[in-house]
């Protein structure tokens, strides 16, 4: 009886988040990609115990959506205060041909000092990772010879069990992201 009550209470205290919570939470614990920030060591898309891993699929030539999301996330983390040290950020490039390792590392670490730069030249491996997150992307060459990239524009938060606990669509305010992170971190402790 106590256990049941406990479950009910826990159920009622689930924080309401501004981002999208998918049910059941998709598992991404099986995904790992080489991290260019550590010389290519495999990096699992799972947070450290008690922490959160924020994952974004993007590319460095992106003029609008990616830098806006990264800048908003930086504002959210700067303003978060306690607990920010339990958050890690990883960017997965959907344009590995142009995003050579040094370029990707410099890009993500200009937003986040310890940012992870995940890159694979194996299209199947990248597609598997994207599918696990529910991300679509397409890199094409337009008529003028300009490379065009279309991609899902979600920022994902993954917990220590390797599940996506929330995802924010493009346009979510940095304050909402900050508040969601605050609630999630309190839950993780």
């Amino acid at each position, binding site marked *: 009886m106590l256990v049941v009550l406990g479950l009910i209470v826990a159920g009622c205290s689930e924080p309401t988040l501004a981002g999208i919570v998918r049910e059941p939470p998709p598992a991404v614990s099986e995904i790992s990609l080489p991290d260019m920030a550590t010389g290519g060591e495999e990096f699992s898309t799972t947070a450290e115990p008690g922490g959160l891993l924020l994952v974004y699929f993007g590319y*460095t*030539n*992106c*003029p*609008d*959506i990616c*830098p*806006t999301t*990264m*800048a908003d996330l930086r504002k959210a983390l700067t303003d978060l205060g306690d607990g920010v040290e339990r958050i890690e950020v990883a960017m997965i490039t959907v344009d590995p041909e142009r995003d050579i390792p*040094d*370029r*990707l590392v*410099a*890009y993500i*670490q*200009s*937003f986040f000092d310890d940012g992870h730069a995940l890159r694979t030249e194996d299209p199947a491996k990248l597609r598997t990772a994207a599918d696990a997150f*529910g991300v*679509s*992307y*397409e890199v094409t060459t337009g008529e003028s010879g300009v490379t*065009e*990239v*279309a*991609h*899902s*524009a979600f920022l994902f938060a993954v917990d220590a069990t390797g599940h996506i606990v929330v995802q924010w669509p*493009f*346009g979510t305010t940095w304050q909402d992201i900050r508040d969601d992170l605050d609630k999630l971190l309190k839950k993780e402790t």
Partner: protein
Amino acid sequence: MTSRPILALTIGVGLVVAACGGGDSIQVEDAWARTSASMQDTGAVYMTIVGGAETDDLIGVSVDSSVAEMAQLHMTEMAEGDDGSEVMSMHPVDEIAIAPGEQVSFGPGGYHIMLMPLAEPLVNGSEFDLVLDFTNAGSITITVEVRED
């Protein structure tokens, strides 16, 4: 004591002018670009364009080669990916109609002026000029502020 009615009149006239949406000519407000990240060699300029007395069309943009090789009107929008899911994609835009008094916002996730490739990184606090070409108003040079935002 006689100055008060004059002051009131001046304020009144000011309000009337303001209500007319800035007068006859097209206005460009708050033009800015985000500081570029390391290795980022594209940029986006955002602004608000306020229409003048008559409809006009923004038909082109240009920037000095010391800023970027080229500037292009662009729009980011939600599109359908191969698998039917939503993806953000960008495409060039030939012209943007600006109706009288209408405020057209250029912002993240919508209209922007793409700079590609950047000649130099966009440094916080710096400024550069950009030329907007309108069908009726002709060429208007605006100053773009670079900021973190």
